[in-house]
């Protein structure tokens, strides 16, 4: 977090020195994106707050902790595949879950399937690539995501 704040500040200073007008329009764009995403983000925060109150840490860690094994990973992969959550919301959510005791491997699988596999958008994807190719791409991505999760679990 600190790293990002310092990068932003440095970028802001450099940008201001180079071009004032561009900087202003960039900051405006950023603030606009922020206000656009804020309500959705607050809604997710509310859901996560309630969820984590109802499901205590140890229970969550048992089902989705580092040692939860195949069940946890399968759950994460399926959940990530059918969800349509934008990254802007998924990452803060994942950070909270990480602090609540969920393993890095589970988070990696959830995030990667979320990003690469889209079951709900499959009909749309099929319009461009055809159903067979769309399904193939999603299945390969699903397998890849589990592989990525396993590798990250070995390191982190």
């Amino acid at each position: 977090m600190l790293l990002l704040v310092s990068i932003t500040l440095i970028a802001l200073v450099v940008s201001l020195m180079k071009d004032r007008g561009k900087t202003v329009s960039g900051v405006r764009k950023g603030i606009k994106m922020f206000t656009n995403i804020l309500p959705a983000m607050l809604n997710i925060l509310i859901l996560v707050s309630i969820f984590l109150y109802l499901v205590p840490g140890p229970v969550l860690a048992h089902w989705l902790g580092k040692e939860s094994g195949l069940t946890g990973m399968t759950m994460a992969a399926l959940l990530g595949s059918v969800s349509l959550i934008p990254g802007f919301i998924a990452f803060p959510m994942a950070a909270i879950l990480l602090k609540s005791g969920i393993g890095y491997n589970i988070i990696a699988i959830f995030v990667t399937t979320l990003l690469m596999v889209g079951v709900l958008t499959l009909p749309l994807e099929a319009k461009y690539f055809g159903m067979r190719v769309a399904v193939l791409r999603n299945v390969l991505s699903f397998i890849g995501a589990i592989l990525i999760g396993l590798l990250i679990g070995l390191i982190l």
Partner: protein
Amino acid sequence: MKKYITWLTESEYVVIALFGIVLLISRLLKLSFSTGISQNFWTFFVEMITFLPFMFILIGLIDVWFPREKVEKHIGHEAGIKGTVWVILLAMLQAGPLYGAFPVAHLLWKKGSSIRNIFIYIGAFATMKVPMLTFEIGFLGLKFSLLRTLFTLPVFVLIAVLLEAYLKDKEFEVRQGS
């Protein structure tokens, strides 16, 4: 008053307002669940509200300083590894959900990109967009984000290579969609 109520019910903040009201009432009635939930909410909220503006300002600055048009000029003309690098760069400068990448895939196809590069574009778009990476680093840390990107890159390149090999002798085209 009535004006405010209609504004609220039509806005995206209606759930948030309801949440606040329920917490307030349950606190007045001294119901135990209110403290647990509001404590959770405040911890997350404070953490996010302090960092999010910085992240979005950075994303806005990246957006104005790295215009996509400059990269787009190179697409289609360069073959091989060079073409792949340009396609990944183009994907990294995008924003938005994956289904926004499909129309671009059609454009790439029309511009003469290879099947492999089109699916590399889809993979990079899904997993390596700079605004998204900014968020990932901010919330899940540099180490996790770097590792995930490092493992994901060869995975989606391999998927693209496999798909190209499979589709080579078939009549494949990226259609216009709707």
